């Protein structure tokens, strides 16, 4: 992916730059809205990562201006503002996703990949993993002739994990994507749900596995 990061904090900029290089993505880094606009006039990128509190212009205003000019590049806001009203404002301004600081690197990567995929790739209809078949349209999992009953939320959780295969997804990200909850509800609700899903998929010969990584989150892996 070609990415443009607009971020005035030097330390965060450095970190994101390092990560993206490690992940094999090309990243340009601008520190103000003005220089970012100039860069966008000459170049183009797959996804734009934008801080809201920039020294010159507000990130929301920049996106509004971009959208008026007909630039359709997906935008992810990276911001310290966690209020619902700010999130709504950001999405209304034309942003595509919203991530609050502090954030897990893999969550940022997962979101960027999802934005990139949404634009570029058609959604597959089914997947075969080992002797297990996942029907993505009918939302069903089957092993040979036996099908596993999944609750709608369980399916939703599996789908999110699967869409970001190999990425360690933090609890916060899963709560947002599956339950539309933007805070930590305290009780180990996600852990309990993941355990339940894991138990249901624990069938010999099943080609998938959900792993818990302490301090970081959950990861979906296919056993090749």
């Amino acid at each position, binding site marked *: 992916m070609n990415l443009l990061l607009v971020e005035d904090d030097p330390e965060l900029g450095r970190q994101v730059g390092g990560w993206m290089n490690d992940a094999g993505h090309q990243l340009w880094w601008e520190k103000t809205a003005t220089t970012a606009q100039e860069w966008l006039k000459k170049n183009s990128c797959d996804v734009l990562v934008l801080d809201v509190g920039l020294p010159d212009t507000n990130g929301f205003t920049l996106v509004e201006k971009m959208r008026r000019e007909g630039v359709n590049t997906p935008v992810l806001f990276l911001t310290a503002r966690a209020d619902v009203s700010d999130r709504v404002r950001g999405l209304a301004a034309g942003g595509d996703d919203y991530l609050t600081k*502090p954030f897990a690197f893999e969550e940022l990567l997962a979101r960027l990949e999802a934005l990139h995929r949404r634009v570029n790739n058609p959604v597959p209809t089914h997947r075969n993993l080992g002797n297990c078949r996942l029907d993505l349209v009918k939302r069903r999992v089957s092993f040979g002739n036996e099908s596993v009953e999944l609750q709608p939320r369980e399916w939703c959780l599996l789908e999110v994990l699967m869409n970001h295969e190999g990425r360690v997804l933090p609890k916060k990200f899963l709560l947002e994507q599956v339950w539309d909850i933007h805070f930590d509800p305290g*009780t180990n609700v996600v852990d309990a749900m993941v355990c339940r899903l894991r138990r249901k998929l624990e069938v010999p010969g099943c080609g998938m596995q959900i792993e818990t990584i302490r301090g*970081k989150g959950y990861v979906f892996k296919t056993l090749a």
Partner: protein
Amino acid sequence: MFSKLWPEKLPSPWRLALLMVLVVFVSILLILIFVRIAVTQDMRVTHRGRISDNLMEYAVLYTQSDLAGVKKVFQATPHPISRNAMRLTTSYGQVIYEDIPGYMKSYDWPKQTVKSLLEKGDMDLMEIMSSDQSQRLYLGAIRLWDGNTLWLGRTDSQARNQLDNIERHLWFAGLTAALIAFLPVMWYMNDVLRPIHSFIRSAERMRLPGNNTRLRTTGAIPELRALASVVNAGLDQIQALTRELQTTNDFLAHELRTPLARIRGNLEHFHDQTDNEQAREAAARSLEEIDRATQLVQTLLTIRAGDHAALRLHRQVTSLDDLLENLVELFIPAAEDRRLSLKLEPGLSLTLNVDRELLTQAVSNLLDNALAYTRAGGQVVVRSHGEGTGAVITVDDTGVGLHPAEVESIWERYTRGSAARPKISGMGLGLSLVRSIAMAHGGNAGGQNREGGGATFWIYIPGA
């Protein structure tokens, strides 16, 4: 009896109108009484004067042309309202001639005058009442040249007619004045009462968070305008403070979150790169702590804003049933792991205009508490019911319950109930956040022990 006529709830225009009616009525009555006394006195003097004038004239006529002349003149005199009566008696009271209209005969005509008439031209004036006539008979007698006495009588019917006439006009004037007296009532309603009602309506709107209504004073009296400007100045000040609080909250959030993000980034990098198992374990624990600290910053800022009515609500029309159903569904696996039964009791479907996310967070805090303080095998039930245009959400558990002395104190910040076990982590912010959120919606939250064990917590959200 008077207090019944003057109930506490009687609206002030009615009070004023009632007072006005009373004042007008009493003044008309007083005026009538005084006018009647004055007019009656005047009339009496007039009657006496007329009778003595007439007696002198008739006495002169009698001297010149005897009884025949007197009779002729008496009968020729026009009597517009009531005829006069005439009688001629000897000095001993024997009647020589009389011409008395029928209705005047019922009066008890005296044989002798009260004062003895000794000389020619001596006069006596009397007033006679009758039992079957309402009018008063004025009577005068004069001693003539031959010693006989000439009597003249007339009733006061004319005077009474005049008095009635005057009274009629007075009533008319009084009632007109009463109508004019209602002008102050109208003024009061327009310039005093209307602005007060508008104040009440504005004040009601002010209760809603984020509302910057002010008292409006078009057409109000100067005193009310002064009151409104003082109140408005106070409100402006409060609003300015609220805005400042919101700005500092944004600033604080930014200033705390950015360094946390830097630390987290580096720590995560370290976690991923290190080959040392123990170091990675330590980094994982630190990452968890950073996430907890971030949540804490957010919670503290929300409570702080909520306490000062500076919480920005993102209200949306929300189905309460869906909200509760989703939450209960989220908590069920965790409840089952603890061998608890978690149920949503179906109620009427309710729709509220609320900040969906904050209300979800409030209810989720109650569920978090209920799960933490209920022992295995227990039961947690979530209910909701309408209250006016709003709703009450309750979470009942069969847990350890509340210590009676702590029913209120647990809502304070950083206070944890004595039932809180050390292994249950928490800062004691959960319930104060619940209350802050409820209050930011104009509602409230509370909790008490249930009969038969366990506690019940409720959130009341009024309709908006």
